[in-house]
């Protein structure tokens, strides 16, 4: 959907193996660990290196432990990797909350506090290289006291080990704190002192292509993708992990003439979107599971009154409040089936940051063309990550709603065999007044309780899905050897892990739908031919995706690997599940 800027080398297409480095930094709330990750990623992007950053917090809401995992490489990356190549840790005790997300190997390099007496936990694994110890903390006897910022020191040590010049850090800091240049100056001496520390070990020296790249979060990509598709109105209610969609739009949409409202709740948020779109304006909202539950009645209205809406759901884990900052793929049922009565809607899935823009364009295309709600399922894992991506130029041909003129059909909801939608009557158009209604209605929009009308109108509305299915039959991504005898079916953010996993598993092929509903069944049936063994992989305790597929096609003999979310699926976990010995990555 989007056009990449010409100057960009086709980095992801080259066959050379990925050279990458996984850097984990663990600290406590006040250590500024996230900032180190942010800056390193920025610096990588400046040099034309690719990367991804995921952040994880301890369970405490504020001030608890926090860690970032950052992976930098010379090709596009949308998976944070398996093993920790570099671990920076100010206190061994900070590590306990991150069990399962950090794994050392023989060549891992540790950077630790010189005086930290704590032992590293066993689950972390072991390495052969000696740890590098640095005096991060300031001590008064045995008591740690406030001192120079540890994050500046850590940043300097990692830069030095990577062979990155000081000027690169200075530039990244200056950009990050453009409104506070004095602050940067104040911190540079700390940076320099650590940068010049003796015996800093050397890490893999990665070389970028030199063309500066863009750092974007999943939520930013969703917001900007929507803007590039013609978004003019947004209403939302804050909720983790989707809030940055609204925050990005507050910063960027009014500047191009759009409007943003923070609503009093999600019912109102989607209500406002329905209202704005009733006015002919491309509109959307973004939320997470709890908000989607509240939006359900408005989804029905949007579909019934044939008003285009785009609803982004950044899925988080669990029902009710669940685990707000954790990822899961368990809103699939709700997206596809949620709501009372029969009504059509389309559901798309987001793979990663690069894909997010593309998906948003398609979402608006479907919503505007077919006048129904379109749900975009992102998740915490995509929403909250930062990813380095090629620059993009927006498409010029934005989706456009078919606007009614007096030459068009005399009724707003005219029944027709060959036309799934009617021209949209935009308020302000003389002669076009009509009644839109959530009540079942006749062709004119007038309320009706006639069972025949209800049947014919249901047929009319559901005919849209047939057209959408025809338009979107190619909206799938397949990879691996198409003749391989074993197959994996997955959706959404598993894309990053699987697209890398497949490189070391030539006996497999992978199928990932970009549209989940209506499901691209033809492509799926074609793809699965000749498979001896097939497995669905998803983060849902009930196996919603697997069960959904079972309702569409014969899934006998297909294995389901479904578990509740929390952490995203790793390659190691997938290997274990498939009964393959854990394969160590070559670097």
């Amino acid at each position, binding site marked *: 959907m989007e056009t990449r800027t010409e100057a960009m080398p086709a980095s992801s297409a080259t066959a050379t193996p990925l050279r990458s480095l996984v850097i984990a930094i663990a600290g406590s709330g006040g250590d*500024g660990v996230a900032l180190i990750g*942010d800056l390193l990623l920025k610096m990588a992007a400046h040099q034309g290196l690719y990367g991804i950053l995921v952040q994880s917090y301890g369970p405490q809401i504020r001030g608890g432990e926090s860690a970032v995992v950052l992976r930098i490489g010379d090709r596009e990356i949308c998976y944070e990797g398996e093993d920790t190549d570099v671990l920076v840790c100010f206190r061994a005790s900070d590590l306990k909350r991150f069990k399962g997300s950090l794994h050392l190997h023989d060549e891992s390099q540790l950077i630790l506090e010189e005086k930290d007496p704590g032992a590293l936990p066993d689950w972390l694994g072991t390495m052969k290289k000696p740890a590098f110890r640095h005096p991060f903390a300031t001590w008064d006897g045995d008591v740690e006291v406030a001192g120079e910022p540890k994050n500046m020191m850590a940043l300097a040590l990692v830069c030095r080990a990577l062979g990155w010049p000081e000027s690169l850090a200075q530039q990244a800091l200056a950009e990050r704190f453009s409104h506070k240049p004095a602050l940067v100056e104040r*911190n540079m001496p700390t940076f320099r002192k650590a940068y010049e520390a003796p015996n800093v070990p050397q890490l893999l020296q990665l070389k970028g292509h030199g063309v500066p790249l863009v750092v974007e979060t999943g939520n930013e990509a969703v917001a900007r993708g929507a803007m590039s598709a013609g978004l003019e109105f947004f209403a939302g209610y804050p909720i983790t992990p989707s809030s940055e969609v609204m925050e990005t739009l507050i910063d960027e949409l009014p500047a191009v003439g759009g409007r943003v409202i923070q609503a009093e709740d999600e*019912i*109102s948020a989607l209500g406002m979107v329905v209202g704005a779109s009733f006015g002919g304006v491309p509109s959307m909202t973004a939320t997470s599971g709890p908000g989607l539950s509240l939006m359900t*009645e408005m989804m029905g209205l949007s579909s019934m009154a044939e008003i285009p809406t785009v609803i982004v759901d950044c899925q988080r884990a669990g029902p009710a409040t669940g685990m707000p900052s954790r990822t899961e793929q368990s809103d699939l049922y709700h997206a596809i089936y949620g709501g009372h009565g029969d009504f059509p809607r389309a559901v798309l899935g987001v793979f990663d940051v690069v894909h997010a823009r593309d998906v948003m364009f398609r979402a608006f295309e479907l919503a505007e063309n077919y006048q129904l709600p379109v749900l975009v399922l992102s998740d915490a894992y995509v929403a909250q990550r930062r990813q380095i991506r090629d620059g993009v130029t927006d498409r010029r041909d934005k989706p456009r709603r078919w606007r009614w003129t007096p030459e068009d059909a005399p009724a707003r909801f005219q029944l027709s065999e060959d036309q799934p939608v009617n021209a949209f009557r935009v308020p302000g158009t003389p002669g076009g*007044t009509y*009644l839109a209604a959530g009540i079942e209605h006749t062709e004119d929009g007038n309320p009706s309780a006639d069972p025949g009308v209800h049947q014919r109108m249901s047929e009319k509305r559901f005919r849209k899905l047939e057209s959408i299915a025809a338009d979107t039959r190619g909206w799938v991504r397949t990879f691996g050897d198409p003749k391989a005898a074993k197959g994996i079916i997955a959706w959404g953010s598993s894309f990053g892990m699987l697209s890398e996993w497949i490189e070391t598993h030539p006996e497999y092929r992978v199928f990932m739908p970009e549209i989940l509903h209506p499901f691209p069944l033809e492509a799926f049936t074609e793809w699965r031919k000749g498979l001896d063994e097939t497995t669905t992989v998803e983060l849902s305790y009930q196996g919603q995706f697997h069960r959904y597929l079972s309702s569409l096609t014969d899934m006998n003999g297909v294995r389901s690997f479904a578990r509740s979310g929390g952490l995203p699926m790793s390659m190691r976990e997938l290997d274990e599940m498939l009964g393959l010995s854990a394969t160590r990555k070559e670097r």
Partner: protein
Amino acid sequence: MKPKDLRTELLPVWCSGCGDFGVLKGLTQALSDLNVAPEKLAVISGIGCSSRLPGYVKAYSFNTIHGRALPIASGLKTARPELTTVVVGGDGDGFSIGLGHLPHAIRRDINITYIVMDNGIYGLTKGQASPTTELESKRSRGLAGGDEQPLNPVLLVLSAGCGFVARTHAGNMPHMRDMMKQAIEYPGFSFVHVLAGCVTYQPRNYSDLLLQRSYELPVEYDKTDLGAAINAVRDGRFALGVIYKRPLEEVSATAGAASEEEWTPPDAVLKQDLPTE
């Protein structure tokens, strides 16, 4: 355009004698007085007998879902400010299921007019108690909530900061026409409380009883005085007329402050990684 030109061909489903007929007439008269063209008009409602009204007005009308007319109208008016936007509905729709939206629509001060046909009952669902049903009436008829105090919707919108508040009676055509006209002309959020009868689920003489409890605000009443407005709506009687109108020079001041300079916490460098919930 004459009032009848603002009517669609659809015949109202209301019981004969329903107070909502008067409201439909008063509204089309006011819109006619103001020369609002049908294509520049949006009439939005929720669900209820009263919420059927948009279907009878020639406009870009939208009969939405129970209690949700205000968010939908707020989105529409924000996206298409040039449209005259009127929201209509009942007491159950606006003061029960949809009440949560009301103070926020008022806070945003979006230029829409909200007309509530308060018949003190759920008409459409056949006579259950609404938030404005009188205690005595609930007790004598065995309706739910015989111990629950009724709500004072006018006091509520005043306290939420509504800039234009009027009350009228569905049987008094000239008064209704005038109140609606003034409300639509007001450049911010305006609220019109209409005392309406329900001939089916309220006593036959309910409309008259409402009228008996009503009085017109005297000419010397200062409608720009919020304190006076609050006093006028605190006793059990119904003051009719413009109860409160914020002086126009104060309207823009509340319509959203200019964005302030970007704020960053002083220890921004160290505290970048606090999670948000």
